[in-house]
């Protein structure tokens, strides 16, 4: 990442930048080392367990077992049918299917469990360090730093994070679209029996819905775009998409952004406010609140002037001369104030996001702060 003003090639600047980076890295490493030896005692009171380290995640095991039981139920047509329903296995019952789930617990709970184990071994459910999730926190922290390193300059570590996220996110979108939309709406429509048997056991469907072939067909044409020879076929789903949205937007934009916005201008430019007094007939009896009235009227006028002048700026078939030119100039001022406000709000948002990342580093990873009592 080269800075502005000075050319990237300036060796002095680059040396300074590298030195700066080295210093920052050194500081980070020093802090890490310090953090690792300054013992982080986990848990509170006499349950406290001192263990050197941080960025750990602890889990508690939760055993799940299920048994199937046959039962007769009335089908839709009233006939008795034999159905097999799965129920959680009762204590002592040997489950036909069983697995263990691991639920996250705070370090405090882990410390307490450690003490309990020491006192009376093999009683409570196991509470232990979750190495996959601990590794996850560390991976996330390192990736966070890797991305931040882009501020220094584009570098391999950053490119690594970049290429990882490109792959993962593309895959993520594909998977979510598949499971949440394609399976229920496409597979569920065209091959309901198979879908119910293997993918969505609780799917309820009234047989094959042949209309599902339409999006499937369009989708196949869309996939034709992958191959150069038949890619022209992809024009049809494209036209479908563009057409649908052109129709939607033509109506909805006019309704909510043109008609409804004009409607909001049905506001009197002269507003008379009365001082709020206690008592039932206050509104009648109350003297006029001049400051309030003038303020309200003024803002009403200013809004009207603003809307009209900014609209004038967006006239394209007329040269901006004379009255129109002057009005348009006022419009530009309004636009600039609008942009200034927008800038302020955006800055606020960006800083909040940065704060969130630092909170992750300090809280989940380094355990420097603990606002929500996780460790």
């Amino acid at each position, binding site marked *: 990442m080269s800075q502005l003003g000075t050319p990237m090639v300036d060796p002095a600047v680059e040396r300074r930048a590298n030195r700066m980076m080295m210093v920052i890295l050194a500081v980070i490493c020093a802090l890490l080392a310090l953090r690792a030896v300054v013992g982080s005692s986990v848990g509170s009171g006499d349950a406290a367990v001192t263990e050197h380290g941080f960025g750990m995640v602890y889990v508690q095991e939760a055993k799940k077992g299920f048994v199937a039981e046959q039962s007769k139920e009335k089908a839709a047509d009233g006939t008795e049918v034999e159905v097999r329903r*799965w129920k*959680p296995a009762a204590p002592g019952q040997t489950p036909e299917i069983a697995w263990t*789930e691991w639920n996250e617990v705070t370090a405090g709970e882990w410390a307490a469990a450690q003490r309990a184990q020491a006192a009376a071994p093999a009683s409570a459910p196991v509470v232990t360090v979750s190495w*996959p999730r601990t590794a*996850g926190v560390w991976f*996330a922290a390192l*990736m*966070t730093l890797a*991305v931040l390193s882009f*501020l220094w300059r584009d570098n391999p570590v950053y490119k690594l994070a*970049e*290429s*990882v*996220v*490109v*792959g*993962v996110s*593309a*895959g*993520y*979108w594909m998977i979510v*679209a598949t499971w949440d*939309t394609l399976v229920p*709406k496409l597979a569920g429509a065209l091959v309901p029996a198979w879908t119910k048997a*293997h*993918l969505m*056991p609780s799917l309820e469907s009234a047989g094959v819905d042949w209309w*599902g072939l339409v*999006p499937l067909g369009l989708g196949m044409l869309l996939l034709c775009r*992958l191959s150069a020879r038949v890619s022209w076929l992809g024009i*049809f789903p494209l036209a*479908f998409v563009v*057409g*649908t949205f*052109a*129709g939607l*937007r*033509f109506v909805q934009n*006019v309704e909510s952004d*043109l008609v409804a916005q004009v409607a909001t201008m049905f506001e009197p430019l002269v507003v008379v406010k009365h001082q709020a007094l206690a008592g039932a007939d206050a509104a009648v009896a109350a003297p006029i609140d001049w400051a309030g009235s003038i*303020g309200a009227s003024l*803002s009403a006028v200013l*809004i009207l002037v*603003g809307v009209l002048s900014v*609209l004038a700026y*967006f006239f394209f078939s007329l040269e901006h001369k004379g009255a129109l030119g002057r009005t348009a100039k006022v419009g*530009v001022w*309004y*636009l600039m104030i*609008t*942009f*200034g*406000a927008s*800038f*302020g*709000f955006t*800055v606020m948002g*960006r800083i909040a*996001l940065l704060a969130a*990342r630092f909170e992750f580093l300090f809280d989940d990873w380094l355990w420097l702060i603990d606002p929500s009592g996780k460790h």
Partner: protein
Amino acid sequence: MAVVLASLVGLVMVLTAFVRPLEFLGTAVVDWFNVLAAIAFVLGGANLLKMNLMKISARDAGWGYAAITVGAFLVTIGVGLLKVGAHPDPLHPDVALSGDKEAVGGAFWWLYEYAMSPITSTLFALLAFYVASAAFRAFRAKNTAAILLLGTAFIVLLGRVYVGVLLTSWIPADNAWVSWLRLENLSGIIMGVFNNAGTRAMMIGIAIGIAATSLKILVGLDRSYLGSGD
């Protein structure tokens, strides 16, 4: 052909907004569109794969990163489709794939929680730094317009945090003639009056613009989405 299709579905969408008997048609078209949108994600993924594989096979510069991308992509697809580490739905423990794909503790969840989230959100956070350098470099009071933009940004920035309250706390809050001068109130006025008016006018203009462009697609005048002009 394609143009006809576009106009047809477009007009259907317009009509269904007004003609009750046609409402079902509108929902059908939208339903197809939604499924198509999902298929488009698959196309997107396949495209990414194709692109990076070509990069790798051609040993382009940085093909190693392409390999990482492909790896990450394939791993995500794999664990996502097979719901690795996600337990089945307790009502149907016998159906392996009946579980929640994003179940906490699963591999897919891990990738989301520890790879996708931190990287994307940190990329977002980078903007705080860029916005700072932009303010130092780009925000110069060159002319009236710039002064207005700058002054507004000042008032909003200060008025939305506690320092604004402190700076103008000397202005009596109960005197309506002057209390509007307090920074927090001033920023409120800017938002409610000036920003309101400016944004509303832009909104109206943009709505008309979008309506016109949509209309041209509906009647087949605008075919730029087909690429070549004809």
